[in-house]
């Protein structure tokens, strides 16, 4: 709840968005695994992005934690559906008054899937190795505040921090806090051994990963005997698989809902932090000119874009502050759809018809090859054409997009979903790909962060308002977490709070 958000985890977040969009679950129509009382005990989940391996300590991407976190690996604390921090492997914990010492009391009777008992030694080993063995060092920054971890006894662990950090506790609820057996060789982690209710039973690369439920999980036998993740990149194919009964559950985007809604499926709309951002390169012309950025904000009918790109699902935002943030304020009306105003602003900036003695504006529009992005882009091009802007779409595969746009800042305008929580200030770092000059809002935000909670909220609102007026990028909408599933499936977690696709409560009602 109180973590600061200066992590550069965009890449991971984007990939998560991809993965979740195509996530679907399904049942085999042929031989459903049926348990006592005729209730099915298996689910096949189809997911867009496949893990390249099972080791998120060395490999980036959201696909691995999506599969393994909470399901195979567990953490001391867990982020619940409302973003709260709740006990998991730790039954309770205390924080010292200066906020630098945390003492965790571990759950007893927990075993790893290979039968080893879970003790404090595993926690110490796992936390220590984040610093020493994880290759993804930028991601591990939140753990850098850890001074040392010690086992007070078999079921008590004390973590000492250099300085107080609210974010740290939140972070050990994510993959950074995953508990591995102390004995495993971190350099050769080819299989995933955790304390969670499921184990990886089978991997067919390019097609599926099968999890089976543990009978000996500390919380009792897993509700499902078998969970299969099927990897379907093409969203249409995923929808077809659901409609053909090959899968039961589908994490998808809003534009896919319409044809499914008249069929017999439950549609669950949950919260996410996924703001779809039309990003401008503020460093270069024409977007170094505020009038151009504002003109674009007026020119684009965001409601229409949301209608087309996500079938009307989503929330219009004025800044990258979702309604779940404490400092949320509805700024979506700041730039209403007004093509005439857009043309005026463009003309002021010197762009327009050649006949009017102005320079026609041409924009290169680099779009990652992801459904929502290309669809939105196509409509935006039409809207821009109406105000005399000629935007040319170039579709880039995501890795190329990362390299060219995100890394080398070689772009004019792009579009991508940012799914990290509290990412307002992250995105506005001057060395970030937007290249926003935060010399004004930066100190304001820092001051707000240092103050009381009320000062923090008020300060951040002011910051958000200032930023919204500057339009460093145009927030098109907040995309919901959408799940379509067989109506008999229960225990689906609607909100996307971490990368994990939490299956621990998933079961059939009939």
């Amino acid at each position, binding site marked *: 709840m109180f973590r600061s958000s200066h992590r550069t985890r965009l890449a991971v977040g984007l990939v998560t968005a991809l993965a979740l969009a195509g996530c679907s679950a399904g049942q085999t129509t042929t031989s459903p695994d049926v348990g006592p009382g005729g209730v099915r005990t298996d689910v096949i989940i189809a997911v867009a992005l496949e893990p390249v391996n099972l080791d998120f300590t060395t490999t980036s991407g959201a696909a691995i934690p999506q599969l393994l976190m909470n399901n195979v690996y567990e953490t001391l604390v867990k982020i619940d559906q409302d973003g709260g921090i709740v006990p998991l492997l730790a039954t309770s914990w205390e924080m010292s008054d200066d906020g630098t010492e945390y003492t965790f009391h571990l759950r007893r009777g927990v075993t790893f899937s290979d039968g080893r008992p879970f003790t404090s030694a595993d926690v110490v080993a796992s936390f220590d190795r984040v610093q020493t063995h994880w290759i993804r060092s930028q991601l591990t920054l939140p753990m850098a505040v850890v001074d040392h971890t010690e086992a007070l006894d078999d079921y008590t662990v004390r973590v000492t921090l250099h300085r107080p950090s609210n974010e740290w506790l939140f972070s050990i609820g994510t993959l950074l806090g995953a508990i591995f057996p102390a004995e495993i060789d971190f350099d050769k982690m080819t299989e995933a051994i955790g304390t969670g209710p499921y184990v990886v039973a089978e991997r067919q690369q390019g097609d599926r990963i099968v999890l089976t439920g543990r009978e000996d999980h500390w919380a009792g036998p897993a509700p499902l005997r078998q969970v299969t993740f099927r990897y379907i990149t093409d969203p249409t194919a995923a929808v077809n698989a659901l409609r053909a009964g090959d899968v039961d559950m589908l994490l998808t985007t809003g534009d896919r809902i319409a*044809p499914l809604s008249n069929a017999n499926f439950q549609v669950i709309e949950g919260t996410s932090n996924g703001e779809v951002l039309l990003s401008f390169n503020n460093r270069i012309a024409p977007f170094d000119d505020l009038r151009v950025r504002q003109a674009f904000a007026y020119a684009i009918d965001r409601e229409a874009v949301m*209608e087309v790109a996500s079938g009307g699902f989503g929330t219009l935002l004025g800044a990258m502050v979702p309604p779940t943030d404490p400092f949320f304020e509805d700024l979506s009306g700041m730039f209403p759809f007004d093509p005439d105003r857009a043309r005026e602003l463009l003309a002021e900036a010197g762009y327009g018809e050649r006949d009017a003695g102005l320079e026609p504006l041409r924009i290169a529009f680099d779009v990652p*090859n992801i459904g929502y992005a*290309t669809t939105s882009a*196509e409509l935006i091009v*039409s809207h821009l054409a109406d105000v005399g802007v000629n935007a040319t779409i170039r579709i*880039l595969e995501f890795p190329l997009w990362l390299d060219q746009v995100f890394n080398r800042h070689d772009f004019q305008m792009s579009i991508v979903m940012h799914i990290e929580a509290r990412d307002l200030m992250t995105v506005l770092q001057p060395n970030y790909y937007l290249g926003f000059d935060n010399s004004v809002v930066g100190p304001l935000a820092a001051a707000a962060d240092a103050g009381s909670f009320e000062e923090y909220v008020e300060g951040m609102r002011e910051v958000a308002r200032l930023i919204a007026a500057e339009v460093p990028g145009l927030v098109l909408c907040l995309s919901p977490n959408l799940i379509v599933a067989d109506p008999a499936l229960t225990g689906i977690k609607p909100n996307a709070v971490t990368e994990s696709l939490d299956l621990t409560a998933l079961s059939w009602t009939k």
Partner: protein
Amino acid sequence: MSQIIQQPGAKAAEGRTASVVQPPSARLPEAAAVGPKRYKPGIHPQLVIGVVLVTLIVAAAVVSMFWTPYDPLRAGVGEPLAGPSTTHWFGIDRFGRDVFSRIMAGAQLTLYVGVIAVSIAAVIGVPIGIIAGMRRGVPGALLMRGSDVLLAFPGLLLAIIFGAAFGAGTTTAMIALGIGAIPAFARVARSGTLQVMRSDYVLAARAANRSSWAIAWRHVLPNIAGLIVVQCSVNFGLAVLSEAALSFLGLGTTPPAPSWGRMLQESQQFLGSHDHLALAPGIAIAIAVLGFNLLGDGLRDVLDPRLKGVR
């Protein structure tokens, strides 16, 4: 016979294709027209249908340069996903664009891709084939070997490689398809050239001390022109299909340009609820491919009887 025996293995392929079917490299519909030479001076149904269909596509393309019912790129000209109506003949797509206008403009793009791809293949492939056919020594063999290496790269594969290397797009796709078709043209040109070079009129021209250049220009080219035209037509259909497939894979034309293949790909998710979105581009592709294939077949039937005189 000795001709064939002289060319064992891979080279035999040339011998046999020259005599039996058209070159193996010409991947698609070559064959039908190799059929009986029942050329009647009157109406030739294949040709007529082919000409009609191709004319339809060309007319749509030409008209779309000056006029379409609506701006094919403009969103919001109608209720998104609306079905066909009197104002929007083929309905409206998800962006609220007029599908009929997009199909018309798509014809332009399709022809553009086809013309460029076929031109690249013909402009490079035909000279290679003619040179290889006229100079049977080392340079000719090398040229043919070179183009045969390309034979191992189907157009689609080339397009994927080029797309990965230079970025996907219409330009990349049509260049790749063009290069991929070079061996087909080279082989057709070579087998035709060999046939012409065996003819007595070339012997007569050589006896009259005409230069190789003059022989190629005055004797070979006019006499293999029919073969080339047929190959162009067939490859045109192939290029249209391949472009559609590439756009379908997301390796072809970038949005919002109205590519039929991409329209088909985008329509996929609305299949069952808004079938018109798939039908319009699907039928357009079929008409274009069918048209060019029939045109090629018809031309072959019409042009071949005179070519027989070459022997």
